[in-house]
């Protein structure tokens, strides 16, 4: 039997295995039986192997999302705020993170040295160390340390999130994935939401009580430090599972390796944009919406924490609920655009999305309470997700595929500096005039600049009788 299994595995041919068995003195009937039994066993082994891989990958996804959920960036902002960071520093940190992410994405697309260094395993391991460092800074209540570490953390997670999904595909093919892994986009949002809520519950429960009366390294252990330590531990368990597959190498993407050339191409493209009014409108409209969303994300958690701590479920759980709503509504946008783009049109949907985006900062400015903010978050994030999807489709209609490729490759290089400067200005407004004024300003940008820009584009296209 073992011989048959070994031969079938080695030569992958049942007929040859039968002959081998016949040569060894087995009758034709016996050989047939042995081969059939060996085939059944091989099939069972394969099934077991698939199940094991499925279980491991599901475990990794679950643990990762719970870890990132309980230590959500919105909570990190709140911790920094509680430990003394002002709004400018929080906003500036996020500006730097976003600008760096844009710049690095461009660099990574065209130069692969850095990308090869940060494999999914290595980036997760470094993220664990960064979490521990964050736990230490939370323990000594250093907001500067937390914000500085947040920059590294965001970049490492960026590396991990771009590399791990490709590696997991090599470990287990799509057709062998179970229901959970096949629908990980949706299930993942639910798991992350669970993590965020658990984190919120823990913080609401222990932030004000004296029950964590434990001294660590001469400092009293506080809930934020404990949250980071727990997240690091969960990620460590997930890393240990991933280590089983260290022989499966990360996918090496095709990169051009012509970074300088691509940078030149990006700036050249920007000077050419000026001659195409439609492209210019879409460029400015999308860039402004991106910066508005970025500033809202930077301050949403802190704002809810400060304004709604005495209402709803509790200070941190309110943030958890609103963050969950944001996560879920961001999934609905592409579906809405896909279903309606043909009948309603892409540009009308783009305009609709940009108007919906303005509802969130406007509702935050008016501060009408928890329900109002929750609904505004649903509509605002849905709007920004509709805008994003409709924008992609509009580009497909407006520009040729070659130009489109150059556009999407260049946009990151062109945007990182304006993102850094404009969001830093937004952070200064928040610091100097308060969050309500910033939110009012953001709503005005959406309604007063982005919306008219897109509407003007619609009029231009309607005159040309081109339906987008």
């Amino acid at each position, binding site marked *: 039997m073992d011989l048959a299994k070994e031969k079938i595995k080695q030569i992958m041919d049942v007929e040859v295995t039968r002959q081998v068995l016949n040569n060894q003195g087995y009758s034709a009937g016996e050989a047939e039986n042995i081969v059939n039994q060996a085939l059944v066993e091989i099939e069972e082994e394969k099934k077991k192997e698939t199940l094991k891989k499925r279980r491991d990958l599901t475990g990794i996804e679950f643990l990762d999302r719970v870890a990132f959920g309980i230590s959500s960036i919105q909570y990190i902002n709140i911790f920094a705020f509680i430990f003394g960071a002002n709004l400018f520093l929080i906003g500036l940190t996020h500006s730097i993170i976003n600008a760096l992410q844009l710049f690095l994405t461009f660099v990574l697309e065209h130069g692969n040295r850095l990308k090869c260094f940060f494999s999914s395993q290595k980036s997760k391991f470094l993220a664990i160390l960064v979490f521990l460092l964050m736990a230490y800074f939370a323990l000594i209540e250093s907001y500067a340390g937390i914000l500085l570490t947040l920059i590294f953390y965001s970049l490492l997670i960026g590396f991990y999130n771009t590399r791990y999904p490709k590696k997991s595909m090599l470990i287990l093919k799509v057709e062998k994935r179970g229901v959970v892994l096949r629908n990980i986009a949706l299930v993942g949002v639910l798991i992350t939401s669970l993590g965020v809520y658990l984190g919120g519950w823990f913080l609401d429960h222990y932030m004000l009580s004296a029950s964590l009366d434990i001294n660590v390294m001469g400092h009293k252990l506080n809930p934020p430090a404990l949250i980071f330590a727990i997240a690091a531990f969960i990620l460590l368990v997930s890393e240990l599972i991933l280590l089983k597959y260290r022989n499966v190498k990360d996918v090496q993407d095709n990169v051009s390796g012509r970074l300088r050339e691509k940078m030149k191409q990006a700036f050249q493209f920007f000077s050419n944009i000026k001659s195409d009014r439609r492209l210019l409108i879409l460029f400015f409209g999308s860039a402004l919406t991106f910066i508005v969303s970025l500033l809202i994300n930077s301050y949403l958690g802190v704002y809810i924490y400060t304004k709604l701590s005495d209402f709803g479920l509790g200070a941190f759980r309110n943030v958890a609920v609103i963050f969950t709503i944001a996560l879920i509504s961001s999934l609905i946008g592409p579906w809405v655009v896909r279903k309606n783009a043909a009948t309603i049109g892409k540009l009308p949907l783009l305009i609709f999305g940009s108007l919906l985006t303005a509802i969130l900062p406007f509702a935050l400015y008016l501060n009408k309470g928890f*329900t109002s903010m929750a609904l505004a978050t649903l509509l605002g994030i849905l709007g920004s997700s509709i805008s994003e999807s409709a924008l992609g489709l509009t580009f497909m209609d407006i520009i040729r595929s070659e130009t489109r490729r150059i556009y999407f490759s260049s946009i990151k290089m062109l945007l990182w500096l304006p993102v850094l400067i404009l969001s830093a200005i937004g952070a200064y407004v928040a610091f100097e005039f308060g969050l309500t004024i910033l939110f009012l300003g953001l709503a005005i940008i959406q309604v007063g600049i982005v919306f008219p820009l897109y509407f003007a584009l619609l009029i231009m296209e309607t005159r040309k009788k081109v339906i987008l």
Partner: protein
Amino acid sequence: MNKKGISPLLATVFLIAFAVSLAVVVVNISAIEVKPVDTNKSEGPSMEEACKGVSIDMVVIDIPYICYKNVSENEAYLNYVLKNEGIKDIIGLRVSVMGQKSSFTREFDLEEKWAPQTLLDKRNDGIEYDFEKYGKILQTIFVPKVLFKGQAFYCSSHSFELAEPLECP
């Protein structure tokens, strides 16, 4: 297959009207606002509940036994003997001492639970006190710490205070 979409301009006008009406709903929804947080429910038991039946008192051994014992010209120990007069175990203490020049507070957990109707004898194991730094002792406050439903509470409303303690015998 000759299906035509509606005019994009008309669709946009409808969508704008829809977005504006949604915005109106959002900003007027405060009427069904959720109630304020029930602090007892979300933050666990209240201090009142946790500190019910907690009481400490001072023991008199010749003098009220919250007293200082000099070990050098400026250094002394604040020694004390207290009695748990309540019905709950006490797990720690917060001791605040106000001197003529400045004050300090020490928090510590007891090695063993301090059971009801028993003494906490710190005649030889008091708190270090620096007369040069803090000056003459004006006031001492002892706050008991208890564990209730898994949470620790300092029962500041059940503290014991003694002004101007004497020198230990």
